[in-house]
């Protein structure tokens, strides 16, 4: 668990920013997007495109009263053309990354053969694309599940790696919370009878593809509001530029149309205008890359605004009753004996329980000789036997498992059940733990106390969340005493003991009534109403269809702690938008000081005083500002797509940092950039 950045996590799929294919495709798309039909959607860049057309035409129409030759108009029109291309490119790159992911998903969505059960009970082979809602199909070992549905009969393991990237198969069975299957996933063992729940083309996979492709992308509320501001600033500068010739003509001089267009393009917020949609698409994409599918951009935006998170205790805050915390000897056996027996049962047990036994034993410095387990037979855990262990080559049998299962096994081997076993196991149960009996041959040696353990790093995370102004509420079915202990240990702000799904809705409504935005995770059908009520409802992919339908995000890895990362991504998205807007607007100061004196210098030589950057000539000054204005867009594409660095600290610290970097930086960088470009241009002029 990283302390530094919450956003990065091992499950995030890395992808380099500019792969060759991606860049190529993005370049092609950048040209396609030049069509006015697309451009009108982005009024700021559309104005730049119009500016390009005007200067382009002016370049070939003989001009009177122009101070600059027609070559100037040609150069300006080329720079403007490139500016528009750069903006389109930024958007195309962001989209391309989504598309690349969609393509992977599409491969999963190939037509498969479905074995449909007819009314007469016979099985017919049809194409999966012909399946309708309500059809019942049979899927056997090794076959792909032809569509989204619910298991109505059977129990089987399913490989969902095509969607989740997680290679370990998951168990699916009829009834309960593990009955939903996704089309395109593979049955690894046994067979299932599945009822299809979606019409063709509306499957989860279809929707996911549409989402990551950005086909369904709609501007989010904040994006629309920001666009309004940017358009109004554009209008303001349009007024400034359009009225300027009236003032100069009163003073008996004129400014070239090309120069006026250059001024306008420099002043309107082209940087953020060109990057805004890329930021939005990339934000969604970051969520997807994190194996979370957000149903809308609005959901990601809301994630940034979350005030309260409701977390289930088990599986989210704690590992569940799975960590060995104590070895309790029974029947006059000593500590060492129990631990040694426990280590034998666990030495080949890869489950968290097994590993925790080895770790705890290692802390007590107890190991078993390696040669003793040579050629030993591993007895895996089975649902029927409810125990696991090891048969050594010397004939010794070690077992650990549920207390009653071990008891029966020992009795079957002709052993006796110690009197203090019952007493100790009850004591552990009362503490909220799980007892696991350990036996060797026909004797029970003791009990492993499996304790509900808070996941490492959770406390720090909750501290960080508190620093970000986010409250955490833990929900658990435990009794108030146990709940309080865990709550204190984990460092959550509040908890609800013996909670029911209705309690969750109550809490959400109460928080929302106080103006707060609430996030929660859930997987069961009875979580669905709360998931729907929450502002951000992260459903687990392993959960029921009802839960997935109700939430506005689905975590394909089914890791409920991810809600914290999702919030960080939401915040990062908003911050990136704000930082680049601030940067873009702050740029205007330098651009003004480059262009305004240059515009007037021919008529009013004294304006040289305002040329504080000491630019070479009026023409070079205007071109430098314009070139800077163009290249800053691709220069910021990586930032727009990756997002600005987010650290879970208080808003004031965040603001100070971002203001310094993007506000002050936005004032200073263009001064330097324009000066450097001017020095280069000087060589050619």
């Amino acid at each position, binding site marked *: 668990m990283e302390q530094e950045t919450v956003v990065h996590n091992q499950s995030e799929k890395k992808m380099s920013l500019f792969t060759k294919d991606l860049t190529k495709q993005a370049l092609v798309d950048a040209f396609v997007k030049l069509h006015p039909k697309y451009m009108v959607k982005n009024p700021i860049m559309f104005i730049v495109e119009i500016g390009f057309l005007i200067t382009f035409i002016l370049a070939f129409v003989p001009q009177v009263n122009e101070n600059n030759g027609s070559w100037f108009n040609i150069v300006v029109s080329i720079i403007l053309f490139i500016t528009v291309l750069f903006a389109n490119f930024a958007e195309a790159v962001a989209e391309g990354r989504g598309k690349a992911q969609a393509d992977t998903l599409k491969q999963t969505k190939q037509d498969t053969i479905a074995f449909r059960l007819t009314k007469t009970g016979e099985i017919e082979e049809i194409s999966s694309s012909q399946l309708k809602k309500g059809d019942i199909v049979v899927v056997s070992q090794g076959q792909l599940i032809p569509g989204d549905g619910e298991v109505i009969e059977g129990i089987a393991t399913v490989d969902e790696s095509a969607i989740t990237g997680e290679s370990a198969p998951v168990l699916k069975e009829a009834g309960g919370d593990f009955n939903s299957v996704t089309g395109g996933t593979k049955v690894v063992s046994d067979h299932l009878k599945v009822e299809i729940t979606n019409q063709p083309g509306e499957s989860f996979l279809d929707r996911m593809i549409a989402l990551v492709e950005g086909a369904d992308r709609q501007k989010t*509320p904040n994006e*629309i*509001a*920001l666009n*309004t*501001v940017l*358009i*109004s*600033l554009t*209008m*303001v*500068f349009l*007024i*400034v530029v359009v*009225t*300027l010739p*009236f*003032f100069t*003509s009163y*003073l008996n001089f004129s400014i070239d149309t090309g120069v006026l267009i250059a*001024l306008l393009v420099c002043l309107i917020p082209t940087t953020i205008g060109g990057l805004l949609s890329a930021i939005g698409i990339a934000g969604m994409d970051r969520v997807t890359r994190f194996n979370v599918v957000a149903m809308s951009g609005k959901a990601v*935006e809301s994630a*940034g*605004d979350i*005030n309260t998170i409701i977390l289930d205790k088990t599986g989210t805050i704690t590992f569940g009753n799975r960590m060995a915390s104590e070895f309790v000897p029974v029947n006059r056996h000593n500590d060492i004996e129990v631990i040694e027996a426990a280590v034998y049962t666990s030495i080949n047990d890869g489950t968290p329980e097994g590993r925790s036994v080895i770790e705890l034993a290692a802390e007590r410095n107890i190991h078993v000789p390696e040669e003793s387990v040579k050629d030993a037979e591993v007895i895996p855990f089975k649902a029927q036997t409810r125990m696991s262990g090891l048969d050594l080559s010397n004939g010794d049998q070690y077992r650990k498992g549920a207390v009653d299962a071990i008891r029966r096994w020992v009795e079957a081997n002709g052993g006796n059940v110690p009197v203090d076993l019952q007493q100790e196991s009850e004591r552990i149960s009362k503490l909220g733990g799980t007892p696991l009996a350990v036996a060797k041959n026909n004797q029970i040696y003791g009990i492993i106390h499996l304790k509900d353990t808070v996941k490492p790093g959770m406390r720090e995370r909750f501290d960080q969340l508190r*620093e*970000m*102004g*986010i409250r955490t509420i833990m929900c658990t079915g435990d009794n108030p005493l146990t709940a309080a202990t865990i709550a204190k240990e984990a460092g959550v702000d509040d908890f609800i003991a013996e909670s029911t799904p209705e309690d969750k809705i109550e809490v959400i409504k109460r928080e929302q009534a106080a*103006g*707060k*935005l609430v996030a929660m995770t859930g997987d069961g059908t009875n979580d669905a109403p709360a998931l729907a009520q929450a502002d951000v409802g992260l459903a687990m992919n392993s959960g029921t269809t009802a839960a997935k339908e109700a939430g506005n995000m689905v975590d394909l890895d089914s890791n409920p702690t991810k809600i914290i990362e999702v919030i960080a991504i939401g*915040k990062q998205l*908003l*911050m990136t938008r*704000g930082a680049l*807007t*601030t940067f873009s*607007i*702050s740029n*205007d*100061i330098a651009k*003004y000081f480059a262009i*305004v*004196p240059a515009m*007037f210098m021919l008529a*009013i030589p*004294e*304006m040289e005083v*305002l040329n504080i950057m000491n630019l070479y000539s009026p023409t070079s000054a205007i071109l430098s500002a314009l070139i800077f204005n163009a290249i800053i867009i691709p220069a910021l594409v990586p930032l727009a797509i990756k997002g600005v660095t987010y650290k879970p600290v*208080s*808003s*004031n610290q*965040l*603001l*100070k940092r*971002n*203001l310094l970097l*993007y*506000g002050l930086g936005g004032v200073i960088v263009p001064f330097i950039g324009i000066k450097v470009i001017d020095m280069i241009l000087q060589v050619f002029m």
Partner: protein
Amino acid sequence: MVIAFLSVIFTLLIVGVTLKPFGLYMAHVFENHPTKLDKVFLPVEKLFYKIAGLKTEQQTWRSYVMALLLTNTVMILIVYAIFRLQGILPLNPTEITGMDPTLAFNTAISFMTNTNLQHYSGESGLSLLSQMIGILFMMFAAPATALAVAIAFIRGIGGKPIGNFFQDFVRAIVRVLLPVSILFGVIFIALGMPQTLHTIITANTLSGEEQTILRGPVGSFLSIKEFGNNGGGFYGVNSAHPFENPNGLTNLLQILLMFLLPASLPFTYGKMVGNKKQGNVLFASMATIFVLFLTISMISEFQGNPVLNETGIEHSEGSMEGKEVRLGTAQSTLYALTTTASETGAVNTMHDTLTPITGMLALGNMMLNTVFGGVGAGFMNILMYAMIAVFIAGLMVGRTPEFLGKKIEGKEMKLLALTLLIHPFLILGASAFALFTPLGSDGISNPGFHGLSQVFYEYASSAGNNGSGFEGLGDATPFWNISTGIVMYIGRYFSMVTLLAVAGSLVSKKVVPTTKGSFRTDQPLFGGILVGTIFIVGALTFFPGLVLGPVAEYLTLK
């Protein structure tokens, strides 16, 4: 010069200590708290309600706007009629004839919008009736309207019901404008201003000539002229006239009065939204800009005019062209900056003859109309900039923007964007139009860069509802009367309507609790962001124009 600077600091200190208590008093008034003064005020207010048959129930923002627009427009019509008919109406001892239609149009709007752009000459253009009903009445009604709207706006964004226009209007007059005006009126009369209905006296001068001197109810006129940020002078030369500004003390009090309403509103606001720091930050930001502008202006004025200096004219007292010797450079500069900052428009010096840099900053004050801006209107503009600053910078803390715990979303942003547009549109658009037609450009007395400044000044003054002029402009023509009339009207009411709509939209929104993750608008850091936003989003808009006007003039003077 040291004494001059000290006098400025002394004046500002006196202003400084009065603002906060007065702001808190206004909060008390408009939160309708019971007070001991109710015994005096309540009967007066009830009388008003009874006479006019007014109801004081809560209004929606729409009905508030309707009430505001209707009452103001009706008042404009009545006053227009009085101006036109003053020749045949009573109280016309000097037999002044009815006013020209475009001039009456301009003057009626001018006084109703708190602008007091006087295209007529005060003492000879209006009868006593016009002065008292047309002018003096409007001088109360206009600031009362603006104050009421600002208060309604504050209530709305603070999440409280908008209030009732008529009640706010009456309370503004009875509890704020009248008591202070009466108090200062008495003081001004005691300090030597005339207060009489016998207007003309004839004096025999030392050289044996006969001189006609006009008098009138100057004292009572003056206190509301300054306090209500009206600025219209009883005399044409305004507060440069010895009867309208007899001495240093009256000058100081006038400066105090100009600041009193607009600069104390941040404190009223802080109190009314339940977080005094919110107001303090706004006040500090505005005060910083004001002091910055003032300092630069003082330096510029004391350097004198380089062209005149070269001729060997003594300039140890600064650039004295167009200034009253009685008042001196420092107090005149302070007055000029105060009157433009507070959008009052009273003048004790000829703004036309300010050095270019001072002229530019005076112009800048009006173009921004936020430092501190006219009573009510200016404060609403500050809040508009605050909301825009919150919207842009607020995202940088990783939350969608909130102001006072309310989400600023698309709908509010649309209204704010429109409000942001209107000021540059009016000033730059109208200036371009005026320069385009000979009707406008013929009025310019100094061609060249200064002429451009004159035109900018006229429209900035109109749009910002200031009312002072770069007096060189020949503006008493139908073109100027009509164009500035329209600019004044739109400049006044457009933003009032849009911003009340913002308040109406915010009032019903849930308040998001402030946490460590919230964007804080009650911290000094926000003050910095606000000042930056005002400069980059507001001031830079006018940069090219200012460069061609005052800056070019400054550069070519050398």
